[in-house]
């Protein structure tokens, strides 16, 4: 019984110890990310997209990536009455938590830029660095989107890199199938 008590003590103390360590790293707000990705935009018109099952299925078919969310937060970036492109906030699975990022897509379906808004993993802070994110610039739906082929992998953060890469590919499919029709 004393063994049980000792072991129980060993179990509970570290559990209590972790409660002090709630963490969150939010690097960018939506307005900050909008400003970085569309510096010339005069306004951002909210354009929340609700997806039907058929649309989600079509996105998966086109990109090879499951569309997890029924709703996608989208803004139309506008300047001088012209559409500069789409600003989309998305979340993908990281090793421990969701990674929140924003993608800027042009109206003709290529990537203008990428900003990581929230990253909470131990390894792989490099995904926030400009040179890693710059690999996505100019990419279109027809590109490969495969780690270590057209996007460099970051060791220790492979799942994060894979899901961010797949996420951008999926957003290009969303742009083609849903946003382009509006």
């Amino acid at each position: 019984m004393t063994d049980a008590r000792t072991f129980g003590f060993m179990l509970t103390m570290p559990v209590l110890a972790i409660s002090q360590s709630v963490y969150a790293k939010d690097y960018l707000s939506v307005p900050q990310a909008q400003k970085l990705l569309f510096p010339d935009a005069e306004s951002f018109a909210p354009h929340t997209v609700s997806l039907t099952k058929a649309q989600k299925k079509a996105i998966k078919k086109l990109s090879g990536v499951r569309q997890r969310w029924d709703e996608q937060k989208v803004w139309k970036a506008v300047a001088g009455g012209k559409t500069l492109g789409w600003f989309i906030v998305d979340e993908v699975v990281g090793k421990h938590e969701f990674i929140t990022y924003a993608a800027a897509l042009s109206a003709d379906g290529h990537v203008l830029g990428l900003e990581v808004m929230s990253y909470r993993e131990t390894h792989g802070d490099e995904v926030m660095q400009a040179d890693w994110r710059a690999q996505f610039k100019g990419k279109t739906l027809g590109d490969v989107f495969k780690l270590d082929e057209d996007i460099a992998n970051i060791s220790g953060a492979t799942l994060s890199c894979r899901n961010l890469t797949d996420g951008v590919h999926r957003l290009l499919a969303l742009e083609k199938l849903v946003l382009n029709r509006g």
Partner: protein
Amino acid sequence: MTRIRPLATAALMAATFGTISAAHADESLLGRVKSAEVLPKGAYDLTLGTTWRQGKDRGSYDGVDVKAELEYGLTNRFQLGFAVYGRSVRNRGLLVDGYLPQEGTFGPKLAAIEVDSKYNFLSPAKDDFGLSLYSALSYGWMDQHSGQDKNTLSLEMKLLGQKYFMEGQMIWMGGIGFEGTYADRAYIPGLPEGFDWPIDPETELEITVNTGLSYRFAPSWYIGAEIEYQTEFETEVGQERWSVFAGPSIHYGGEKFWMTATWLPQLDGGGERYPGQTSGLHLIEKTKNEFMFKIGMNF
């Protein structure tokens, strides 16, 4: 029990102290089943694991194993580890010819050292299916079951598979491994006449197959379940034992550290049994329950 306490306290202090400084990568989502992932180059992982082996149906039996391990990512595909084991065994009310020669409390004391490595052939996130080879060489001087002096030299080889589902929210892992052991027990003076305690060196071959699933149900929190079949063949008796353990785990993975708690009851077992044993389990070298707790820090 009071003799078990110093070991437990040391484990607790190390675990609690460790949480102050560090952080994740080769983390254990389950108790027994290993992942195929490796640490990135230059990363360290310090893990402290405790296993409480409890109950043999008759009498009162408790074994506590503590493993402290430091792992290092030598390259992005290859990691090395060094581990130290501490152990304490308390046995009351059960003597088994050839296996449990004495009642009492043995330990806590240092029991074994181990060097291990993991080589990653395929990455589960990059190649869709993860595959690694784990190997470990260990030297021990305290019998895990009886607590008696016993020198052992073991070599373990294990193939590890891993697959992500739902973009990594659900993870399958599995392993198949072999462990060969050369064992040499020490003479115990004063045993009753006729009590069997062989002191000739023997060799053992252990085969382990396990598999499990882990699902992230909330940010940083995973629940999982695993099942493990293990059998051992030994020089004298052929197939000495087999057992099936299965049970749940809960895992927390944070930026600074991770931890996993597991309960593995023995569901089925066979092989050698002690006289008068009523349950259909293997309870000579195994117990009815195993409770595991691991905490790890990456930096």
